């Protein structure tokens, strides 16, 4: 496979005067068919490498002739871990994403021109960001695929005080969800724990409200059959459908929230959905 995998510090412009130091990669297609790029947004405590590269998404999209833009969220992967809380707010991240895709060559949608616009695939926390990004960028986003989506944000319910106590003196965390998320965050050496907690704090300040702004463009919602969080998927589907958008859903048998990501059925459905 002769893919032009490229690594570059893509960030050239800053939003609001500070550079959050997000690590961006642009992966060129196996053969360039002149199709609009695909932005991939990874989940909490993951990275572009874990979420998209190791799981085979990038090569699958490249083979399908797609140009792929990946971004590590602040404090994740190879991105910086800024000190200021503001860098972690979902609204700031969305603004940074917009600048990044523009720098990477995404252009506003023009009817009948398949090279314009941007497709977005999000996973878990990335799905939330993709939902909001689509809702706020109707002139840019062409289609969206949401993996492991949830109308509720588990991070918003995170018990930050308990987590900080636990980190300080080992006091056990009562809330199971909080304990699980913290364990996840601690597992990866590439994660900056301070940054993880900053992100959670910032998200608590801007909790997910899918009804506040729902995307109008076509949506594909995908979740594993055993993904408890995806119980709210129909809720998201109906919210989007009410805005008049085309909504498709897909449930992958036997898969959980964690392991649905590698599923071939997921990838094939996404490529087909975005290929339209």
């Amino acid at each position: 496979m002769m893919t032009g995998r490229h690594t570059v510090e893509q960030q050239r412009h800053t939003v609001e005067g500070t550079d959050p130091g997000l690590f961006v990669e642009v992966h060129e297609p196996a053969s360039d068919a002149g199709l609009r790029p695909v932005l991939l947004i990874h989940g909490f405590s993951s990275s572009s490498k874990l979420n998209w590269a190791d799981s085979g998404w990038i090569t699958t999209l490249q083979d399908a002739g797609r140009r792929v833009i990946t971004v590590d969220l602040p404090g994740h992967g190879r991105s910086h871990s800024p000190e200021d809380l503001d860098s972690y707010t979902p609204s700031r991240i969305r603004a940074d994403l917009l600048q990044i895709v523009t720098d990477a060559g995404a252009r506003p949608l023009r009817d009948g021109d398949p090279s314009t616009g941007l497709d977005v695939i999000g996973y878990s926390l990335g799905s939330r960001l993709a939902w909001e990004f689509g809702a706020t960028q109707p002139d840019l986003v062409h289609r969206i695929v949401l993996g492991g989506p949830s109308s509720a944000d588990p991070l918003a319910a995170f018990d930050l005080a308990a987590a900080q106590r636990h980190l300080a003196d080992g006091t056990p965390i009562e809330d199971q969800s909080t304990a699980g998320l913290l364990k996840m965050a601690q597992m990866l050496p590439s994660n900056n724990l301070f940054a993880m907690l900053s992100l959670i704090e910032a998200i608590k300040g801007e909790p997910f409200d899918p009804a506040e702004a729902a995307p109008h463009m076509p949506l594909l919602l995908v979740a594993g059959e055993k993904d408890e969080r995806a119980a709210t998927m129909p809720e998201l589907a109906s919210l989007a459908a009410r805005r008049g958008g085309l909504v498709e859903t897909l449930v992958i048998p036997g898969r959980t929230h964690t392991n649905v990501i590698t599923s071939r059925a997921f990838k094939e459905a996404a490529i087909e959905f975005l290929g339209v």
Partner: protein
Amino acid sequence: MAEISFPLPDLGEGLIEATVLDWLVEPGQQVERNQPIVELETSKSALELPSPQAGKVVRIHGAPGETINVGAPLIVFEVPDDTAGIVGTVPKDEAPKRRVRLSAVLDED
């Protein structure tokens, strides 16, 4: 015919095992180097493993749901003995063809 066994590699940071989610290849199939062969789940993430080499799949170890230890056999490839050397091609053994006929008076003096 040579067989090359590929054990489950360390998938990072000292993980000792992985669970098979789905095989993307099956015995008898010819695979290329770097082609994804199996979906695995570790305690950290789910991933696709690319094939370390080209060859025909002889055996795969671990049904979906089963756990495999790092270092245990994962997949066995068959590499034909008659692959060419670093250059050139393996000559075919063809039935001999002739145009010339022999004729002789073999006096046995």
